[in-house]
């Protein structure tokens, strides 16, 4: 989660200095504990993960190389999206990392579909699939359809719901009328877990249990965490609509600082050690940016401009 914070601060400063980053920047600051706690329970290359907009930490924990991140943000032709799609939309489906589309809620059924096919082909074993959503995304029909379908099929799906109190500028009160999003789980017939989103220890405990339950055949699991975004919806947004009281409430705590304190208090890692991790992280980030920065940008004359894998069915193709 610390590396994630460093990566995102770098992305933010590249965005603000202008020029190098193509498109918008959407960060997960304040949600790293929640995101990473899921990511570390998953086995990269075996499990399936469909990260969303605020999951840089989960991506790192799942094993996504930093190069994939910077290549995509810088729009190089070498990254997984090759300039065709950007920022948080990146993924490598064949390696279990799905590439989200913007439409919120749409990934729930896709992750479910991967698991469905694995069961059909006898390769499911104890693998699981996971995806994320925000408080706002839970209002989509796609989310509801996907949760219901996964529950009917009793597939090992973990859905993490990051209730950061706002969907862009819209507060929970204009988003849903139930007391707690957790109660949705019961309606779908899936197990619900509640964690403190700003507390790494609580997140780890909850996700460990939820993922273990899914692995052992208990069907879909929904984990709800509460926190605040420690920034705007995107880097273009100053989040002026978030009231002061919220910022200074326990939800506005910085999960990274909470985690550092816990580590120190439990004697697991001193401030010195954490400093060391930070320096290590900076080196990794600088190397990744330096490499991505040297790589070619997409070239419209080399682009194939076809959306079908069956090339002879591409219209206007003269080969």
């Amino acid at each position: 989660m610390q590396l994630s914070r460093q990566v995102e601060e770098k992305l933010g400063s590249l965005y603000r200095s202008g020029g190098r980053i193509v498109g918008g920047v959407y960060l997960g600051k304040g949600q790293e504990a929640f995101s990473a706690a899921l990511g570390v329970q998953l086995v990269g290359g075996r499990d399936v993960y469909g990260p969303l907009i605020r999951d840089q930490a989960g991506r790192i924990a799942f094993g996504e190389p930093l190069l994939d991140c910077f290549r995509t943000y810088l729009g190089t032709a070498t990254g997984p999206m090759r300039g065709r799609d950007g920022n948080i939309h990146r993924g490598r489906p064949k390696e279990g990392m799905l590439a989200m589309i913007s439409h919120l809620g749409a990934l729930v059924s896709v992750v479910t579909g991967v698991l469905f096919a694995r069961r059909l082909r006898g390769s499911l074993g104890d693998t699981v699939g996971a995806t994320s959503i925000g408080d706002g995304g839970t209002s989509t029909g796609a989310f509801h359809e996907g949760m219901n379908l996964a529950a009917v099929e009793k597939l090992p799906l973990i859905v993490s719901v990051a209730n950061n109190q706002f969907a862009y500028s819209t507060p929970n009160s204009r988003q849903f009328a139930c007391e707690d999003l957790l109660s949705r789980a019961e309606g779908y017939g899936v197990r619900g877990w509640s964690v403190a989103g700003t507390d790494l220890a609580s997140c780890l405990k909850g996700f460990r249990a939820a993922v273990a339950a899914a692995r052992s055949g208990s069907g879909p699991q929904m984990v709800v965490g509460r926190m605040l975004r420690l920034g705007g919806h995107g880097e273009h947004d100053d989040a002026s609509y978030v009231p002061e009281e919220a910022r200074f409430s326990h939800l506005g705590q910085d999960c990274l600082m909470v985690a550092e304190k816990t580590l120190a208090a439990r004697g697991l890692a001193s401030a010195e050690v954490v400093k060391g991790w930070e320096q290590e992280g900076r080196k990794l980030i600088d190397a990744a940016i330096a490499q991505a920065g040297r790589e070619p940008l997409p070239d419209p004359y080399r682009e194939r401009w076809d959306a079908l894998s069956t090339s002879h069915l591409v219209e206007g193709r003269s080969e």
Partner: protein
Amino acid sequence: MSLTYLEAIREAQYEALRQNADVFLYGQDIGAFGGAFKATKGLAREFPGRVFDSPISEDAMVGLAVGAAIEGARPILEMQFADFSSVGFNQIVNQAGTQYWRTDVPCPITIRLPSGGTPGSGPFHSQSMESIYAHYPGLVIVTPATVEDAYWMLLDSVELNDPVMFCEHKFLYYHLKADSLGERSLPIGKARIARPGRHATVVTYSAMLHEALKSAEELQLDGYQIEVVDLRSVKPMDTDTILASVARTGRLLAVGESFPWGGVTAEIVARVSAEAFHLLDAPPMRLNSKDTPIPYHPNLWKSHRPTVTTISDAVRRLLRY
């Protein structure tokens, strides 16, 4: 042996399931019940564990199919009616249609759309969606008009490594019969001259092919030889075959059952106008259903869509020019 268009679709799914263990069927009421139209009759029994009833969740059904395809499966989805695919629209055009282009991972799914009007079906059980889906990149749109094509093109669709919208026409389900399924002939992407002629070309597809053929019979009595082109797939569109026909006849009428604003017939006219203007002896024409929702009562429905009479009238105008 005689086989209907609907039975051919069932047979093709039987064959696809038999040939390839990666194929599975997913849709509402398609399991033990055999589907609203019985297009999957008996398949759940013959292929245990490979034919699934789904919840009424068109969005999630398509999402599931895309996920399964990423994992190497080749799902065939049944929409109960083409009209309801609008609820899965986002997953079709934005998830399935962009998957290969964005990630280099192909998306071999086939979505069966029971399409088109039948008397008494009304605004929400009669739609033709080919024009809508053809508008989006990354999808193949097939529109079989014959029993043989229903069979072979469905098998071809399942083998393709891209998402296919399989527009099967409900009006042909029981009416249209063939003595045999013939042999695999033309591939997807190739049109067929359904009737040769030299005075005018009618380009059409799906159920409208049969109206156009009847119209050509009628016009023959007046001494006109009308060439009828069956597109078979609207995307990709076999422009070469259309242009070659227009080169022979000098006159073009494009006929489709979907709504008139834009769409497949407009695309045909645009291509011919742009690429074969010099071959035309008359302004190219198009004929579609009317620009209202599809009416329920047969009296109204019959006048809403193109018919033998309106096609013949249009061709006569074309010939008089």
